[in-house]
C-alpha cells in the first residue's frame, strides 16, 4: 500500500463476469469483465454510446444481462430485482439527475434512508418509531443539503431546482441511503467547477470514513484523474483499457477511441 491512490483493501466487492446485453440487434455491452476492490475509487470513461450507462443499468438490475454474472459481496445479483440490489447496499444515481419534482427537496432525500418503519403499512401503528425515524432522517437530510448548498430549498418542491442543483440532489439522495458501494453516472456534468472540487472532497471523505466503494462514469478524464485509483475505458460496448489513471493518458487505443479511428487509417 505504498501508492496513495491504490485500493485500501484486497477484498473484491463487485465482480462482473463476461456480461453482455442485447436489445434487438444492438449490443450496448459485450463480454465485459472486471473486479472492483472494496473501498476503491474506479472511474469508467468512454465516448458517447460506449455502453457506460448500459453497464450501470445492468449492475443496478434495471436491465437484465443476456449472459454473464454479476457478483456483489459474494452474492449473484444479476437476476434479482433492482430494489433488492439497492437494499444490499449497492446504490446508483442517474445520468439525467432523476429527481421527484412534486416532493420537496428534503422529502427527496428522506425517501432514500433505509429501514424506515413508516415504509411498511404495518408501521402505521408504530407512531413513535415513525416520528423518531422521520426526525433523524430530516436532520440528516438538512445536513446533506447544507453540504451542497441547497438547504434554503429544503421545503420547496424539487421541481424548481436548476439542472445542476438536481445533480447535487440526486447525489446527496444516493448518499442518504448509506450505500457500501455507489454507482455515480456523470454526477459532475453541468455542476460548476468549484462545487465539483467540493463534491470530490466529500466523496474522498466518505471513502475514508465509511469505507465506501465508488464506481463513477465520467466523460472527462481530467475531472477524475486525481480521485481515481483506476480508470476503465469503454468503447463500443467493450473494455478497451483498464489501469492507473496515468497509464490511460498515454494509451494508444484510448486515444484512438476518443479521436476516432481515422488516425490509424491515415
Amino acid at each position, binding site marked *: 500500500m505504498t501508492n496513495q491512490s491504490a485500493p485500501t483493501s484486497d477484498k473484491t466487492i463487485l465482480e462482473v463476469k463476461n456480461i453482455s446485453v442485447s436489445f434487438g440487434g444492438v449490443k450496448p455491452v459485450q463480454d465485459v469483465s472486471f473486479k472492483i476492490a472494496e473501498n476503491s475509487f474506479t472511474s469508467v470513461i468512454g465516448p458517447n454510446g460506449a455502453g457506460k450507462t448500459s453497464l450501470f443499468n445492468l449492475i443496478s438490475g434495471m436491465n437484465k444481462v443476456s449472459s454473464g454474472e454479476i457478483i456483489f459481496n459474494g452474492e449473484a445479483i444479476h437476476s434479482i430485482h433492482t430494489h433488492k440490489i439497492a*437494499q444490499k447496499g449497492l446504490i446508483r444515481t442517474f445520468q439525467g439527475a432523476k429527481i421527484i419534482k412534486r416532493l420537496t427537496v428534503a422529502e427527496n432525500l428522506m425517501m432514500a434512508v433505509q429501514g424506515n418503519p413508516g415504509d411498511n*403499512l404495518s408501521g402505521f401503528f408504530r407512531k413513535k418509531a415513525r416520528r423518531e425515524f422521520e426526525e433523524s432522517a430530516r436532520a440528516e437530510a438538512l445536513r446533506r443539503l447544507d453540504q451542497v448548498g441547497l438547504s434554503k430549498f429544503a421545503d420547496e418542491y424539487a421541481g424548481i431546482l436548476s439542472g445542476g442543483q438536481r445533480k447535487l440532489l440526486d447525489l446527496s439522495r444516493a448518499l442518504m441511503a448509506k450505500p457500501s458501494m455507489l454507482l455515480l453516472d456523470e454526477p459532475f456534468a453541468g455542476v460548476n467547477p468549484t462545487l465539483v472540487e467540493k463534491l470530490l472532497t466529500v466523496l474522498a471523505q466518505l471513502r475514508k470514513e465509511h469505507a465506501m466503494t465508488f464506481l463513477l462514469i465520467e466523460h472527462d478524464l481530467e475531472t477524475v484523474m486525481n480521485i481515481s485509483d483506476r480508470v476503465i475505458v469503454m468503447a463500443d460496448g467493450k473494455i478497451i483499457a483498464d489501469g492507473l489513471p496515468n497509464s490511460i493518458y498515454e494509451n494508444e487505443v484510448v486515444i484512438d477511441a476518443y479521436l476516432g479511428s481515422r488516425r490509424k487509417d491515415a
Partner: protein
Amino acid sequence: MSAFLQPGFWIFVLALAGIYGIFALGLQIQYGVGGIMNFGHVGMMAISGYTIAVLVIKYQWSFWWAAFIGVVLAALLGALLGLTTLRLSGDYFAIASIAFAEITRYWILNTDSITGGTQGTLAIPDPAGIGGYTTQPDQILTWISDRLYPLFGEEASRDLSMLFVVWPFLILFIWISSKLQQTSWARVLRATREDDEVPRSLGKNVFRFRLQTLVIGSVFGGIAGVFWALQFALLAPEDFLRIVTFYGWMILILAGATRVKGLLVSAIFFGFLYGSTRFLEFWPLSLLSSPERAYLRVFLIGFVIVLLMVKRPQGLFGKREEMVLE
C-alpha cells in the same frame, strides 16, 4: 324549483354524497397518492353490493357477515387486478381496469341463477322468501330514525338515518386516509407517481407499494358498495355502469386529486348535481320530461370535468404549482 327547499331533497343529496365520498376516497388514494389510473373502480362497488344481496337472499347469511365478505372480496379482486395488470404502465392499466369492471358487470348480468340477471336482486332465487337483504340493518336504521323523530319530526326518514350512519364513516375514513398520507409509505408512493426508477433504485419495492394502494382503494370501493346496497335496497347491473366510476373521478378532480379533505365538499357538490337536474323546471329545460332532465346530470358532470381540466386542473383545493412543475 321548490324541491330545493325541501329538507328531504338535501337529505338525499347528503346521503348520496356520503356514499360517493367513500367511493371517491378509494380513487383518491390510488390516483392522488399512487398515480394509479383506475377506471374500473365501480367493479369493487358492484362486487360487494352483489355479494351481500346473494349471500343474504339466497343463502340466508347474516347481513353483517355478508357485508364483511363483500368488502374482503372487493379487496381480493383488487389484488387480483393488480397482480395481473399493475405492471402495465399508466394508460394501459386504465384500459385493463375498465375491462375488469365490465367483465364483472357482464358476469352479474349473465348469471341469472345467482345474481338475478337483468332484473337485479329482486330476481335472486329466494328459498326462505325473505324478499330483500336489508332486514337486519333496517332494524338499526329504524331505531335511529325513532331517536331522530323528536328532533326532526316527519323528516326522520330512512334516508336521514342513512345520513347519520354514512357520514361518520366517511369522516372516519378521511381521517384515517389523511393520516396514512402523512407517512413515509405515502411519500414513496408519491415518488412512484412520477417515476418508478428512483424509488426502485433506492430499495423500494414499487410493485408492492402500488399493489397495497390498489387494495386499500378497493376496500373503500367495497365499503361504498355496502352503503350503496343499503341505501337503495335493490341492485341491478345498470347501477354499475362505467359512468359511476367517472362520477367518482369528478369528485376527485373537483377536490384536487391530492387533497383528501376536499372530498367532503366536492362530494356534496356532486350529490347536488346528481340529484338536482330532475328538478330544474325552468324553460327550456321544462320542455324535457323529469326522467330526461335527470339524465342532464351526465352532461353537467362531463361539463364540470372538462371545465376543471381547462381552468383549474388542480381542483378547488389543490396547489397549482404541483401541476405545472417540469
